């Protein structure tokens, strides 16, 4: 008996410690309060997106309103591992500016989000951190344009305005550096939801890499016919800055913020800004060039949701639910207990009389390599089902090593 209590205590402690391990870690501050965009909508969404990863604990801090006394905005940046700038407005106090620069120089992480690269056109250090910026009378004095033309990076010093965008639309994001921690494992081309494509940005562009670009097609109005940077990484002192030009916000966050590509790159960029690496898996629903993926609740689909839906699959429909399961399978990387749990959920669909033949065929293919003895009796029964006979025999043959 005594041992049993000890075990329970031990188990309790383990749970406690593992919970600690997963407690939101990196203290993050979203700075907002003034913007030409709907910051009241975007900031809570940014908070939710970051906290979804389980990696960040996020606080939102607002500056005084336009024309207010900026001396009262005096945060202790050193308490945070990451600052997310959702701000485009009045200059901060010199003290705050200096503290911000010190914070980054000393290794603090920063995310520059959408119109934050419009802000502070005269603040030299800030512009070195964003790499490129737009509007606020930016022009050739602020630095070159950077873009891709014919797959070559161009630094264009010609005179002209800094910052423009065409009509809001879907656009294809093209990954330019595929082995950076942020882009590793992402598709090289994916469609982004309805958004402004920032163009003609200019700035010092020092210590900067362009991770992804998008082509500013002129048919949609106002396009530059250049591949404009949309994701950038910059180093400043010991600090790392992730800069995304995407995510224009309307009421409720706007469609661009629901895009799984925007969400994922923001989450990965934020982690990289803190640690220099990315531990997050590429989500199963990351968009491809074939279509935009929106997440209405900013959340990746769960395994339970996928299983609730997979039984309705027919060959003409999207395989997205299976993709979710496959992606989960792969993320288990051979964990036997995890695979068995998944196998049990798959077998449940096989037993379900309501589930479609097509859904069972898909699951049988997966079971053929990852299944165990647990599946065999159910699959044996499927051999007598004329529609599933071939597939069932295929799986049994493979599971029993007969092939």
């Amino acid at each position, binding site marked *: 008996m005594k041992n049993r209590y000890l075990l329970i205590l031990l188990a309790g402690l383990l749970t406690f410690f593992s919970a600690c391990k997963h407690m939101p870690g990196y203290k993050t501050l979203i700075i907002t309060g003034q913007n030409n965009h709907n910051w009241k909508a975007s900031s809570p969404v940014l908070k939710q997106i970051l906290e979804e990863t389980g990696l960040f604990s996020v606080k939102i801090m607002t500056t005084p309103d336009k024309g207010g006394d900026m001396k009262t905005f005096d945060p202790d940046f050193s308490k945070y591992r990451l600052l997310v700038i959702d701000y485009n407005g009045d200059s901060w106090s010199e003290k705050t500016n200096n503290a911000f620069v010190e914070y980054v120089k000393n290794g603090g992480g920063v995310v520059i989000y959408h119109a934050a690269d419009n802000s502070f056109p005269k603040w030299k250090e800030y512009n070195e951190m964003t790499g490129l910026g737009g509007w606020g009378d930016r022009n050739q004095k602020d630095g070159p344009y950077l873009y891709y033309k014919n797959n070559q990076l161009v630094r264009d010093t010609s005179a002209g305005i800094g910052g423009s965008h065409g009509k809001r639309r879907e656009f294809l994001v093209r990954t330019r550096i595929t082995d950076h921690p942020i882009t590793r494992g992402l598709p090289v081309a994916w469609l982004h939801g309805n958004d402004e494509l920032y163009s003609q940005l200019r700035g010092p562009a020092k210590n900067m890499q362009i991770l992804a670009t998008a082509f500013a097609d002129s048919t949609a109005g106002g396009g530059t016919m250049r591949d404009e940077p949309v994701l950038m990484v910059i180093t400043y002192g010991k600090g790392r800055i992730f800069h995304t030009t995407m995510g224009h916000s309307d009421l409720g966050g706007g469609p661009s913020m629901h895009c799984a590509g925007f969400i994922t790159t923001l989450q990965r960029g934020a982690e990289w800004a803190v640690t220099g690496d990315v531990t997050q898996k590429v989500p199963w629903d990351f968009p491809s060039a074939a279509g935009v993926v929106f997440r209405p609740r900013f959340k990746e689909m769960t395994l339970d949701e996928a299983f609730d839906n997979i039984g309705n699959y027919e060959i003409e429909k999207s*395989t997205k639910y299976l993709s979710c399961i*496959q992606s989960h399978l792969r993320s288990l990387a*051979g964990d036997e207990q995890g695979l068995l749990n998944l196998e049990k959920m798959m077998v449940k669909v096989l037993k379900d009389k309501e589930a479609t033949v097509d859904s069972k065929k898909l699951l049988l293919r997966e079971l053929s*390599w990852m299944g165990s003895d647990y599946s065999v009796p159910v699959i044996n029964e499927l051999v007598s089902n004329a529609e599933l006979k071939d*597939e069932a025999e295929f799986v049994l043959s493979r599971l029993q090593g007969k*092939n």
Partner: protein
Amino acid sequence: MANKSSRRDFVKRSAAVVAGAFVLPQIIPSTAFGMGRRIAPSDRLVIGSIGVGSQGMSNMMDFLKLKDAVQYVAVCDVDSLHLAKAKETVDHANKNSDCRTYGDYREFLEKEKLDAVSIALPDHWHGIIYSAAANKKINVYGEKPICRTIKDGQAIVNAVKKNNIIWQTGSWQRSLANFHRGAELVINGRVGKIKYIEVGLPDGNKGIGTPPVKPVPAELNWEMWLGPALEVPYRGVSHWDWRWILDYSGGQLTDWAGHHIDIANWGAGLEHTGPVEISGTGVYPVEGIFNVPVEYDILCKYANGIEMRVANASRLPLGMGTTWHGDLGWVHVDRGDIISASDPKILNEVIGEKEIHLYKSENHWQNFIDSVRSGKPAIAPVEVSYRAISVALLGEIAITTGQTIKWDPEKEEITGNPNATRLLSRPYRQPWTSPTI
């Protein structure tokens, strides 16, 4: 290398052949005269084709160009329109109407007495038909990749060796000067010790959705086309597009392994071994019947420390082709006669007499014929091709399972991973059975 059968020698030789050939009442393969499989220079090779769709037809045309060296006698295909077109082409070249046609490779192999056969089929048929041709002791020109699974590949390699036939894989880049030159510079250490290789293969096909089920066209024997693969209703997808469906192919990754991975192995001296550790990620379509990865990124580690990354071209700085990175620089080769280097001087290097001179061929199809005549191996022998496709197939397993695969290149098996081991083969649909190893 001793392969001295230059084009000029050959033309001289075959001038005599043409005169002789008209006298013969019937084409009898040289093997029928009890000469084993060695063919006298004065005889034309009796040859036929199994699979005369796009690539099969293209290979046939390349052989027909060597008309003084080959005598085409028969063609086999499960599509009667392909068959009719192939017969017409052969008959036109032969100026007669004698080309025989078959819808079933078994009958073709049984009835025809051939010196050589050119085979170009969807990958899921390779295991059975390559082995069957080898077991008939017919020399084979076989399309890459030589197998859909590693077990099929092992069976093919064994059948070729056991029957001591000449094998040439359709890895024709080996017979082009820039690839040969790049590999030869690298194997002779002109970029130092090789540390890292990048192999860029084409980006994947975007897909066609799910076309409706259709009646099978009269010309197509769908049951035979499917063969050992699972039965599925016909949706108008067979020729060419089979390479976007996992039951028949691994997509661009496996389709091109026999080109740029093969070349990578050639230059790096990895032709007779394989990686020891393989990991990878892929992006799959989320709708439609095409289900091969549209993107893939695989990292292989070799026992000697070399790393090889194989990815769809858009993921790599130099895109398509093979890039060998040594401790002194790099060399890149690709189609379109492309060869470049970290320092242009490398490209002017002369390979000394006592250095390694890689096998030289200037015409891939001619090289096969020369090998059949001489009994010396062709430039793309079977085991080397098996090693090239193994890289892609192991990569496919790593992507499918999400696991880092440990491979023993000596024993040719996956270690410590029974789940992944199952993916080394595919069950065959009855009545077909896997070729035995």
